[in-house]
């Protein structure tokens, strides 16, 4: 409408940039862009100047120099002679490991706690309320430190653990970590892995078929048992056929520690525990809010159809609640990943501990290390939210 009253182009006035709705948005945007860019330029030029004044340069060459320090818990081969980038990789994998473990266990814990919080069993729902409120309102850092203290003081020392094993000769819980049998791989183990993967694919196909069959005939197969069989039997057959290429490596008593086997160190366990319990409380609240948002008619209708309470929950309420639950859940998973950086408080060597900690300290390359560290976290966060958002799209109500 205003366009019709606008004078011809040749009478363009400077004030139109601000007063005319056609130009104003461009003006604002250009101003915003210029301001932001000049601030960024200023920061960069300051940084360049200051680095020069300190006689420091900006390059990532230090990453290929030997790190010179050792790491307690690692997923890939690493020693003090390895390069700094390798140390960073160990840290990255450690971050991902603890984040993944904590996401899974926090979800399980949170879903149970959230459902139990709504239970009509007074004692149970109160107990869950105490857990949720107690944990949510205390700083995570404090909880990590506290759990670590509990683990190193309550669990037995390696010597005592040898006398009181969880499973004789195989599983030991010590205050330095949990020891479980590790795997020793020899020739041909790839066949077994292949068989396992094939079984997993087979289970998917089978489940799809079983569902179709249920829709057509109404018969329900014992899915769990058959899946388990599908998973184990072929792999076991291949395993023996190839000549048992995978052996267990049991932990045994050493001079100071237990040796051999797979060690899951106390820092990892304490961190995992604290993260799961802390985030579990948040997830419980999310789950509770999601379930409460489903109208009561849904569960009543399910009861009317004759579904038992647990089936009502798993077939009717939860699938609907899931749509409400998933978005806040995504940000919770992101929080877990970011909070795993508190690992340095208990000496778990995650990305912040290696790249942002010891490497930064020993090389004095603050700028490079911090940039790399932040970029890595950013990539992790964006990929998690990307994947989860895609999943969210797929379960979203389709319509309109």
């Amino acid at each position, binding site marked *: 409408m205003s366009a019709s009253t606008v004078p011809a182009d040749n009478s363009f006035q400077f004030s139109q940039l601000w007063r005319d709705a056609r130009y104003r948005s461009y003006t604002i945007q250009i101003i915003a862009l210029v301001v932001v860019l000049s601030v960024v330029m200023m920061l960069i030029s300051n940084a360049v100047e200051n680095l020069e004044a300190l006689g420091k340069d900006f390059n990532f060459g230090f990453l290929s120099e030997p790190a010179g320090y050792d790491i307690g818990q690692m997923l890939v081969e690493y020693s003090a002679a390895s390069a700094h980038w390798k140390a960073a990789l160990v840290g990255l994998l450690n971050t991902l490991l603890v984040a993944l473990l904590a996401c899974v266990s926090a979800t399980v814990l949170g879903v149970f706690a959230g459902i139990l919080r709504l239970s009509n069993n007074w004692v149970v729902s109160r107990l869950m309320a105490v857990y949720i409120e107690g944990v949510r309102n205390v700083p995570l850092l404090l909880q990590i430190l506290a759990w670590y*203290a509990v683990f190193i*003081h309550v669990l037995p020392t*390696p010597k005592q653990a040898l006398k009181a094993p969880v499973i004789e000769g195989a599983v030991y819980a010590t205050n330095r970590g949990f020891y479980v049998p590790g795997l020793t791989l020899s020739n041909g183990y790839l066949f077994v892995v292949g068989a396992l993967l094939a079984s997993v694919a087979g289970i998917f196909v089978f489940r799809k078929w079983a569902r179709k069959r249920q829709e057509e005939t109404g018969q329900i197969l014992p899915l769990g048992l058959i899946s388990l069989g599908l998973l184990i039997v072929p792999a076991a057959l291949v395993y023996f056929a190839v000549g048992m290429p995978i052996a267990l490596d049991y932990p045994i008593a050493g001079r*100071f520690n237990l040796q051999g086997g797979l060690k899951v160190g106390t820092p990892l366990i304490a961190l995992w525990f604290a993260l799961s319990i802390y985030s579990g409380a948040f997830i419980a609240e999310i789950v509770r809010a999601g379930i409460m948002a489903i109208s009561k008619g849904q569960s009543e209708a399910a009861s009317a159809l004759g579904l038992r309470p647990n089936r009502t929950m798993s077939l009717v309420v939860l699938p609907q609640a899931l749509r409400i639950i998933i978005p806040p859940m995504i940000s919770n998973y992101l929080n877990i990943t970011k909070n795993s950086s508190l690992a340095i408080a208990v000496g778990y060597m995650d990305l912040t501990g290696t790249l942002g900690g010891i490497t930064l300290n*020993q090389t004095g390359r603050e700028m490079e290390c911090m940039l790399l560290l932040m970029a890595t976290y950013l990539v992790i966060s964006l990929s998690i939210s990307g994947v989860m958002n895609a999943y969210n799209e797929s379960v979203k109500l389709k319509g309109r």
Partner: protein
Amino acid sequence: MKKMILPVALGAAFAAASFSVASAGTLEDVKERGKLRCAVSTGLAGFSYTDENGKWQGFDVDYCRAVAAAVLGDADAVEFSPATGKTRFTMLASGEVDILSRNTTWTFSRDVDLKFTFLGVSYYDGQGFMVKKSLGVNSAKELDGATVCIQTGTTTELNLSDYFTAEGMSYEPLAIETNTEGRQNYLADACDVYTTDASGLAASRATFENAADHIILPEIISKEPLGPLVRHGDDQWADIGRWVLNAMKISEEKGITAANVDDMAANSKDPEVKRLLGVSGEMGASIGLDNDFALQAIKAVGNYGEVFERHLGTETKVNLARGLNASWTEGGLQYAPPFR
């Protein structure tokens, strides 16, 4: 939109109040401010800790007080900033503090690459190992396969790795951030061995309930000369820090203590004591201080030996013998250049 104006204005006021533009001379800055800013450890028995009144105390802390007394005439005119192993160098480099007194090892790269000036050695140390007697270990060479608690952000972890590699042994590191955590982990048997500077080991051991159940192994695997440091490029300020430290050592040699320092200044015939305490000569004025700067420092905290005995010595729980840190007149390494 009023809400938005407010924080912006407040932010500006806050910024204006706390902006500080470092000028060329640290000494002038300190005098103008009326306070010395000093970075110390966040908590290490004997070296820096807080007492019940929230005052910082300790060996490293007293050095800062001595400098404040020398420069400003008031030992309490110090602002202490706790620094972690990670943050200490940045704090000093950025001018956030005037001096760093946090048992920092003097190394080539810190001196040259990080561009700091070490003012001398306030404590000669070396990295050692502490183990429980019950393990039956008598030498660090028997530690193959042990779990070792190490403090990160220090030279310790590199020394440790080098040592074990050289001896062809393996170990499992348990990284810890502070001495407190180290002590906690070691006592709970989360590690077999605790390694840090021998002074730190002794300090920790002293506070154990059964100190006799723990032994410090004979191997000292590194040299750790600890001392205060300042930024490169301000020689006057470095001189002040260096000579306050030296004055504390010379006072011990000459038997000057906090109690008798006034008496010595009035009555001593020793020309070096007279120069030191500002009775004769213009030594203090030539570094921009009062001539009696050393007198003020000694009066405030005492001589090197007194400070040592007060916080670390055999009378304290830390229970460290003077050892290498005895004055050279007693067979130690603490040897100050002459004051002339």
